[in-house]
């Protein structure tokens, strides 16, 4: 890949190449080594979703990094995320290695929490029971987990008194997604995987959720993988942005982004924020027209 050396675009810096595991000195939280995933391998409808994907996320001391993944639809973003989670059929990879904290991923676990785009609240459980599901699986005594559950319901901006005993179908989409996030964060996972979690929310709710997420992320100190179609969202939230190419997907560019200094709504008016956004938008437009 011949690209010009590191280029500054507003808040972002485009690295001259996507870093490989060998170049990064700090411990690796997540690394992909030449990962290829072919669905239905060997059958008539075999399809290679990602090819030869290599990247590394380092363990920044004292805080996890916030990684955003952008790319055209169908380029394999969810495939990468679900491989990290260890979920079938994305796991296991057809070839290459997926490592988390230096260990190969063998299956799903609560150290890698996941928030999905479509609401996956357990419909038969109340908000509180949803939030404390993971603790219940750890056999945490009821009183202790209910207490923690209420704390998290409150942190997510829900009303403990009125909402804790509602069922998911009584909640709006935004509230359900808050429950899903609380349910994941309460377990303090080392890695949080989010697949377009705000995709179905209206723009205003979305901005509020972004601010909330930043606040909570700082608190739990996890490495976040965040897939989104919104470039603004990626630039606001991300410490790093991965740009993916068309399928079979690879990571085309890695951008380092300056941390945001104010709320989502305010950041999105600043010229250097916009400069980064426009740069990425042009890239993606070009990618999509090449499809």
């Amino acid at each position: 890949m011949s690209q010009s050396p590191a280029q500054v675009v507003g808040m972002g810096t485009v690295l001259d190449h996507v870093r490989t595991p060998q170049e990064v000195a700090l411990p690796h939280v997540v690394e992909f080594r030449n990962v290829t995933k072919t669905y239905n391998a060997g059958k008539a409808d075999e399809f290679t979703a990602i090819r030869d994907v290599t990247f590394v996320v380092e363990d920044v001391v004292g805080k996890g990094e916030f990684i955003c993944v952008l790319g055209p639809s169908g380029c394999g973003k969810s495939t990468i995320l679900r491989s990290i989670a260890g979920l079938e059929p994305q796991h296991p990879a057809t070839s290459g290695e997926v490592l988390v904290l230096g260990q190969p991923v063998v299956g799903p676990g609560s150290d890698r929490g996941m928030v999905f785009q479509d609401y996956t609240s357990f419909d038969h459980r109340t908000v509180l029971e949803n939030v404390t599901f993971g603790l219940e699986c750890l056999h945490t005594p009821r009183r202790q987990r209910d207490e923690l559950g209420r704390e998290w319901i409150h942190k997510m901006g829900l009303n403990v008194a009125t909402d804790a005993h509602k069922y998911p179908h009584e909640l709006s989409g935004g509230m359900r997604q808050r429950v899903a996030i609380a349910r994941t964060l309460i377990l303090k996972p080392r890695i949080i995987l989010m697949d377009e979690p705000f995709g179905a929310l209206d723009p205003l709710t979305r901005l509020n959720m972004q601010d909330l997420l930043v606040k909570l992320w700082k608190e739990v100190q996890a490495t976040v993988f965040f897939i989104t179609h919104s470039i603004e969202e990626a630039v606001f939230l991300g410490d790093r942005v991965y740009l993916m190419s068309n399928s079979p997907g690879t990571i085309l560019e890695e951008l380092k982004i300056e941390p945001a200094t104010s709320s989502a709504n305010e950041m999105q008016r600043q010229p250097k924020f916009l400069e980064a956004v426009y740069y990425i938008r042009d890239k993606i437009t070009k990618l999509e027209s090449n499809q």
Partner: protein
Amino acid sequence: MNSSFLDRLLRNWLTLRRPVSRLQAIGLGVACILLCLTGWWLLTQGAAESRLVGPLTLPSPAETFSKFSELWNDFALTRNVLVTLRRVSIGFALALMIGIPIGVTAGCFPRIHAFLSPLIMIGRNVPLAAVLPLMIFIFGAGEKNKVMFIFVASVAFVISDAARAIMDVSARYIDTAYTLGASRWQTISKVLVPLAAPTIFSACRQMFGLAFGYIMLAESIKIADEVGGLGYQIQIFQRRGFREHIYLIILVIPMVALVIDQVLAWIQRQLFPHLYGGDGMLRSLVRITVIPWESLKSLIFYRTPVSLSSAATEERPK
């Protein structure tokens, strides 16, 4: 003017899937019953010879209902209903107790499903007319053959419906449970089964109605001793030519079925408040009974969750 009135009426009454108020629903049902009764009365009014339908085919409403006290007293209607209900309940309960665990297992593990599918196939298509004599050969003339008949007639359906319900739970719930740290067993018991339970319950509620019909078939086979039950009674009335009684039984059975179905519907509402609203009395009851068991497990298995300790930060490689 006239057409617009008709138009409006049709629009109002026949709007696609517009919900009906409870009062109106009952009113419409009663109207249907009255209409049928009137038709029945018209067909059978007047002297026996001048009726549109002869009394041998269809007795008049008055003739029929006048036999009710006889049916109730001399033919011990309540006792027979209870005998029939007991048989079908035991047989069906047995089918649920064996069928649901097998069905759930088959739904969770496709290999087990594949292994069992020939048996399920045979069970679902077994000719009931052939099962009946077999049950009598195997279990003799007593109660057992009837109970087992109901069991055999319904168990395969219970298994396949339970399996289907589990398989229909969206995979994303399993993914979610796994990423929250649930084990396979926890995913089955805390996610798959509770999410499939309403579907399984509905299916079983319908099947109970069918089983209630089957049992009368089993009861109508005459074996040496007196067996009792509605099917047996119908058999007697047939031999004696008691048309009125048979018509009455035909009217009584749906009412019994209705009462049972309403009870089941109530249970369903109380078990699954997330689908039917309400305060979920039975659900709370179930949960209360689980709490001691759960606390016991907490005592044994409790590991300090990372969220309560500083493990999350300690674990980080420096």
